């Protein structure tokens, strides 16, 4: 087991090292940020001075070396645009994204699983067909389009909900949250709905597929033959069997929803990290871009690692196979 853990940790480390090189070189390749951020009156001398200050006059490998040296000390550098440490900037935006993502994914899971089980349990009822129609829509319709329609309907035509922004925030546990105020809630409603829609469709499909398969298994057949009530079958057997894949997917989706928030945050001007990365791309704020990508990669590597290790604990065959 220890060997397996070490092997996986090592892999994760190699992946992160490779990612840091790829990200750094990639961002370097996009273009010279100085051309965009320097004011037009700048003489060539001033330009050279700015380039020197940012360390962009050094060869690429040297820039990378400096970057990594700082990185291992937990320093991602300073934003070119805000002159504050990048980590501070990202940490400041994180609560906004987190609350949006958590509200979306939790509501998507609760509603999606309920509807999905129903649709799988009674696959031929009208309601099930309606549920599946919703899920096909949710799965197909691009998220940005849903966002536009939500804005058009609720903000423009009906004028009942704000079209964007985060609204009033309150300080709780030293962090600014908006879901604790009514104004904040009214702001979070549309983006959360937007973000949840796609995930809802996925959860419905997952729960429905799981339910259909499980309902056809021998366990359920025997349980029914033994005269156990349907309600009990659903509660005892179905929920138990279906919860494992759903929890796994919930974990995996948490990461992908964080990434997908980029689109929703852009449409609704939600001041989270997704908006930050899009803004940083448009001004080539390199340190922010690099830090965002590396942290995202790290997040996914950690999720993968956890999933691997948890599965290894549950299923000894995997351990044997990998050894």
């Amino acid at each position, binding site marked *: 087991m220890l060997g397996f853990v070490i092997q996986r940790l090592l892999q994760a480390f190699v992946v992160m090292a490779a990612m840091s090189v790829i990200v750094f070189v990639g961002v370097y390749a996009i273009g010279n940020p100085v*051309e965009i951020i320097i004011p*037009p009156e700048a*003489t060539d001398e*001033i330009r050279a001075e700015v380039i020197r200050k940012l360390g962009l006059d050094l060869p690429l490998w040297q820039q990378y070396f400096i970057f990594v040296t700082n990185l291992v000390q937990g320093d991602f550098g300073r934003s070119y*645009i805000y002159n*504050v440490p990048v980590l501070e900037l990202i940490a400041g935006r994180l609560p906004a994204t987190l609350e949006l993502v958590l509200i979306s994914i939790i509501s998507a899971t609760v509603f999606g699983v309920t509807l999905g089980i129903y649709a799988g349990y009674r696959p031929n009822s009208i309601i099930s067909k309606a549920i599946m129609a919703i899920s096909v829509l949710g799965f197909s319709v691009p998220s940005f389009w849903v966002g536009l329609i939500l804005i058009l309907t609720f903000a423009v035509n009906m004028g*009942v909900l704000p*079209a964007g922004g985060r609204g009033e925030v309150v300080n709780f546990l030293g962090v600014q949250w908006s879901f604790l105020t009514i104004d904040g809630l009214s702001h979070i409603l549309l983006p959360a709905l937007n973000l949840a829609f796609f995930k809802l469709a996925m959860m419905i499909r997952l729960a429905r597929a799981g339910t259909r398969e499980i309902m056809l298994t021998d366990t359920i057949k025997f349980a029914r033959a033994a005269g156990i009530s349907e309600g009990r079958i659903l509660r005892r057997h179905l929920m138990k069997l279906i919860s494992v894949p759903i929890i796994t997917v919930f974990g995996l989706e948490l990461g992908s929803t964080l990434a997908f928030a980029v689109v929703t945050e852009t449409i609704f001007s939600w001041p989270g990290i997704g908006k930050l990365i899009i803004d940083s791309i*448009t001004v080539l704020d390199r340190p922010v871009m690099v830090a965002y990508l590396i942290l995202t990669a790290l997040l996914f590597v950690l999720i993968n690692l956890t999933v691997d290790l948890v599965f290894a604990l549950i299923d000894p065959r995997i351990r044997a196979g990998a050894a």
Partner: protein
Amino acid sequence: MKVKSLIASMAVAIGVTLSTGVATAQTLTMGVRGGPESLDPHFSALGSHAEAAKHMYDTLVWSGDDLQIEAGLATSWKPLDDTTWEFKLREGVKFHDGSDFDAEDVKFSIERIPAVSGPTTTTIYVRRVADVEIIDPHTVHIKTNGPAATLPYDFVRLFIVSADAAKDYSTPETAAEGFNGGPAAVGTGPYKLVSWEPKGDLVLERFDDYWRGKGPWEKVIRKEIPNDSSRLAALKAGQVDVINYVSSIDYLALQRDASVDAVVGDSVYIMNLQLDQRDDTPKVRAKDGSKLDKNPLQDPKVREAIDLAIDRETMVQIVLEGLGKPANQMMPPGFFGSSEKIPAREHDAAKAKALLAEAGYPDGFQIDLYCTSDRLPGDGAICQGLGQMFSQVGIKTNVNAVSKTVYFPAQSRLEYSVFMNGWGTLTGEASYTLGALAHSKNPEVKLGAFNRVAYKNDRVDELMQKGAMTLDADKRRALYEEAMELTMADRVYIPVVQLQTVWAAKAGKLSFQPRFDEDTLAFFIKPKN
């Protein structure tokens, strides 16, 4: 039915909460597109940064509504000799912490800039300064490297910070900490800092001892809402009192909206088409894609044809939906150095075709037109409109409206032949614009830094160099006017339209004067009674 009533009750609930968010009478809440990048005024030269800084700090020289220079913290200035300017400082000015403003603070601020400036560098404001000499507490002599006729214009964004408060916060590492909510953010401006969140709200309170007098608002909240639609929605919902940069798209609808007042102001930005003059230019071909013997853009007839192909009236009325003006030179009328002798530009497609035929291109040729699509309002749409107009006189045009992150690096690598971008004469005088664009590129005299079309007119070069040394304002103005006339006649730079900017406020609540530099300044926004 149930669903409907649910939505209706939701609407009521939310309507109530929105109205509780409305600010009280003595507070002005502004919804602005961009904000400061730091509260250190010397960090960035960006317009939105300076705009925010003007609430808390004063500049040595004040730039008026029409960018005319006026007394600021300096009451008067005059050149003593070729390389010395004398500035007399205002007496009795207090900093927010109660201390007095004097020459020490000016010297400190100027000398601090190179150390703490970020990449959007404010070093440009002091690039001509060689040394600052304190004569007495209210007189400074500024030594320049070479004659600097336009020095006072450089100082319109030279913010003065308190030497005592900021002396420990003047390295790149400490500046952000000292100013962003720290002890160093002390100025002489009309408002004092309460709190600031990057990309969020800047909260200010009135400074009662302000030298211009008390501001009209006890409290000012400057909210950053970058998205145009969201900003307008916030105004309509009553979350903010005034917003800047209403898009032309929304402006049309706003004119019919009685609950909102819209104020239109001219912008300093003019869209200029630029035509590469190199012998071998990359993005011009024959219509069949083959290489041409020579660069047709070098031919004055071709350039005139391109100019004549542009229908500026349609551009303004249709593309910008009325929010702009046809431009005939690279600066708005009335700026120092813009000429009244330059005629309005005509539109004549038939004549354009004839000129192309005369120049030896009866069937036209093919160009790739490049422009930004995300920098200024309407830039991408104007560019596509130009594409249509050129195509209709026989110049097949492939329009590439690209992100500014692609455009500017490529433009600086001289990869384009025909390209368009906005240029704002932010100082209000011609050396800023003609010096950077119309003078041939010459690092030795520090001119022509943005001349990316290899334009060279010896007379223009001579006039610009002479102007930089001419301390007499009237003589200098005449030199710049001639340079502008010559440059415009050459049609290497072809101005297309001047943009306009729109502010919007709740109907009947506020009165203010639009500013050419597009600043939204709380001190000058007055409640309407």
